[in-house]
C-alpha cells in the first residue's frame, strides 16, 4: 500500500454530513471562532474508541441519516449515536460496536426514526482533511474546516490517515450498561449564569426557565437549539446603554452551550454558534451533558433544564469519562 492514500467516497450525502473532531477548534474564540466539533461528543468519542483511533481523530457527523459511503481499503468502522437502520454490503450493522470492512465495502445508514437525531461514524485511521487552527472540524457558520468547509455530497472523496501498526481487527462493543439513554423528552443539566438572578432575571424567571417543558423549535441546528418565546418579567426595566430590551447587555463573549435569551427567545448556543453578542446568557449546559444537544430532534422533542452545581458537573465528567474507557468495552464472542 506504500504511496497509496486510503480513501472513502460519499455515495449519498444525506441532510448534513460533516467532518468533525473533538474537542474542535480551541484557542480562536477571541477571533470569533466557536469550537465546532461533534454536537454529541459522547457518541463521537465512543466511535473512535471502538475502532482504535486516537481521541483526536476526525470522523463523520450524520444528521438524521440517508447516507452511504464506499470504503476503498480495509478498515475498522463503528456507527454510534441515534439508532438508525444500517448495513454493510447489505448485512445489518449493529451500532456501538466495531465492524470490519473489506476494501470496496459500502456502508449505508437509513433514517433515524427517533429518539435521537445524529449518527457518528468512525473509520480506523481517521479522516485526514487539512488541519485548520488546530482542528479538522467543519465550522458550518464560517464555511471553513472539514472538507472544503461544507457538508459532504455525492462523489466527494476523503483521505484516511495511517493506522499505526495497521488497523486492529479486534471486534468490541460498548457494554449495554454503558449505553446512553435516549428519549423524546430530555433533561439537560445546566449551571446557572453567567447572567441570571437577581441582577438580570427575577427568581421567578429562573424558576420558570428551570421548570418549563420547552419544545425544540424546528429551526434548530448546529448554531443553536431554539426553544419557545417566553415572557420573562425581568429584574430590569430596560437594557440601559446596551439597548431597549432588558435582555440586552454590553456585548461580551458567550460560552458554548449558553442559554442565550435573545429578546423573549431562549436559544442554546451550539458548537457553530455566535461567539459573542449583546444578550444575557441565563444558564450554561454542563460539558458532560452537552452531547444531548446533538440528539434533540427539531420536531417533537422537549427539553427540561435541570440546575446542577460545579461539583455535580465534575461528577458528571467523571461518569462520562469512565464510560469512554477501554473497560467499558467488551469483546464480541
Amino acid at each position, binding site marked *: 500500500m506504500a504511496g497509496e492514500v486510503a480513501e472513502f467516497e460519499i455515495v449519498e450525502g444525506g441532510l448534513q454530513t460533516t467532518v468533525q473532531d473533538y474537542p474542535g477548534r480551541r484557542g480562536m474564540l477571541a477571533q470569533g471562532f466557536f469550537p465546532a466539533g461533534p454536537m454529541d461528543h459522547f457518541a463521537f468519542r465512543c466511535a473512535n474508541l471502538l475502532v482504535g483511533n486516537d481521541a483526536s481523530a476526525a470522523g463523520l457527523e450524520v444528521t438524521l441519516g440517508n447516507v452511504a459511503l464506499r470504503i476503498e481499503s480495509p478498515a475498522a468502522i463503528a456507527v454510534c449515536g441515534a439508532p438508525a437502520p444500517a448495513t454493510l454490503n447489505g448485512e445489518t450493522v449493529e451500532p456501538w460496536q466495531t465492524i470490519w470492512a473489506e476494501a470496496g465495502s459500502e456502508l449505508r445508514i437509513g433514517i433515524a426514526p427517533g429518539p435521537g437525531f445524529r449518527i457518528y461514524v468512525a473509520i480506523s485511521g481517521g479522516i485526514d482533511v487539512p488541519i485548520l487552527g488546530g482542528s479538522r472540524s467543519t465550522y458550518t457558520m464560517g464555511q471553513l474546516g472539514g472538507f472544503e468547509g461544507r457538508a459532504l455530497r455525492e462523489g466527494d472523496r476523503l483521505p484516511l490517515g495511517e493506522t499505526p501498526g495497521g488497523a486492529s481487527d479486534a471486534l468490541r462493543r460498548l457494554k449495554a450498561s454503558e449505553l446512553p439513554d435516549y428519549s423524546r423528552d430530555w433533561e439537560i443539566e445546566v449551571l446557572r449564569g453567567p447572567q441570571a438572578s437577581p441582577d438580570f432575571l427575577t427568581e421567578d424567571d429562573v424558576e420558570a426557565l428551570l421548570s418549563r417543558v420547552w419544545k425544540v423549535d424546528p429551526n434548530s441546528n448546529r448554531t443553536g437549539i431554539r426553544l419557545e418565546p417566553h415572557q420573562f418579567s425581568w429584574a430590569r426595566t430596560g437594557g440601559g446603554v446596551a439597548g431597549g430590551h432588558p435582555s440586552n447587555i454590553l456585548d461580551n463573549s458567550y460560552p458554548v452551550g449558553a442559554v442565550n435569551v435573545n429578546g423573549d427567545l431562549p436559544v442554546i448556543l451550539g458548537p457553530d454558534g*455566535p*461567539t459573542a453578542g449583546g444578550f444575557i446568557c441565563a444558564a450554561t449546559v454542563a460539558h458532560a451533558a452537552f452531547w444531548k444537544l446533538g440528539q434533540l430532534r427539531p420536531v417533537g422533542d422537549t427539553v427540561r433544564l435541570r440546575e446542577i452545581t460545579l461539583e455535580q458537573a465534575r461528577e458528571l465528567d467523571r461518569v462520562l469519562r469512565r464510560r469512554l474507557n477501554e473497560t467499558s468495552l467488551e469483546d464480541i464472542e
Partner: protein
Amino acid sequence: MSLSSTDINAAVLAREPAESGKPSATYRVAGDRAVLVEYGEMEFDLALSFFMLAVDDAIRTRKLDGLIETAPGFRSILVSYEPDDLQVDELIAFLSDVRRDLNLSSGVQIPSRLLHLPIAFDDTQTRKAVEQYVQRIRADAPNSEGGNNIDYVVAYNGLPDHEALFNSLLSTEHLNVFMGFFPGLPFLFPRDPRHAVTAPKYNPTRIWTPAGAVGLGGPCWSIYPVESAGGYQLVGRTVPIYDLERRNAAFAASGLLMRAGDRVQFHRVSEPELLELWEDVYADRYRYEIVEGNLDVQEHLDWAAELSDEADQLREARERAATTIPVP
C-alpha cells in the same frame, strides 16, 4: 485576595470592589469550563475596555496551567479552562492577582493599527436586506419604515437628517475593542464621545445581511464579514474584511483583515466607486490603507475627559429623543 462575600449567588462566584483606580470585578459562572469576569458596571466607558485589554494582555504574559484561552468583551473576559488541570477557585485567585498587580501607570501603549476604510451610505445591498426583512420577517417593524434603517436611527438619536448620522460615523476613529459573533467581526466603539450614537437591535433578527454591511447596535458599530443573519441597524457598506481564499495581500496572514485594538477611520465613497473597489480587492489591485501604530491609553482618556461635558449634553439630548421613538 480581597473577595467580598456579599452578593454571591449561584451565578456569581466572587466580587471585588473598585479600589485604587481599578474598576470592580465580578466573577460569573459560565458553565463548568469557563468563567466570565466583568470589570466595572454596565456603562459605556472605553476606560473599562482599556482596563480589560491590559488584564487580557497580562493573563497571556503570566500564563497558567489549565487556562485554555481568553475571549474579551467590551468590559469583560471569558476565560476558558480545563477543570482537570485547574480548579475554578485557583483560576479566580489568579485573575484576582492579575488585576491587583496591574500597574496602570501613565504611558501604557496598546498596539493599534489605523485602518482607513471606504463606506458607501444607504447603498442598494443594505436597502435590499431591509426590504427583504419587511417582506419576509416583519412588515410593521418601526426600524424598517421607508425601506431603510437610517430614518429610524436618525430619529432615535434626535439628529436633523441622514447627513448628521453619516457625519457622526465619519468624524471619529472607532476602536475595535474585541472580535466575535462571527470570525473577524469587529466590535467598534467611537473614540470621540461627542460622536456616539445608539440604536436598539432588530426584533426579531434579520435572516440576510450583505457582506461588508456596516451597522449599529446599542452603542456599537460593526462590519459583517460575510453574508449572514444579523440584528444591527444598517447604514451602508464597506470593502471586504474577511476572505479565506486570501485573494488580496491584506488577508495573507489569516483571512481576517482586523485585529483587536485596531482603529478604523471611515471615508465616504459613492456606491459605484465601492463596487469597483470590491473588484479591485479580489483582483489584488486594491491596497488597504493600514498604518502601523500604537494608542496611548492615558492620552486618549485625558482627551475624552476634556470632551465629556459636551458629550454628556449630547447624550442627554439623544436620550430625550429616544423616549419618543418606539423600540422594535
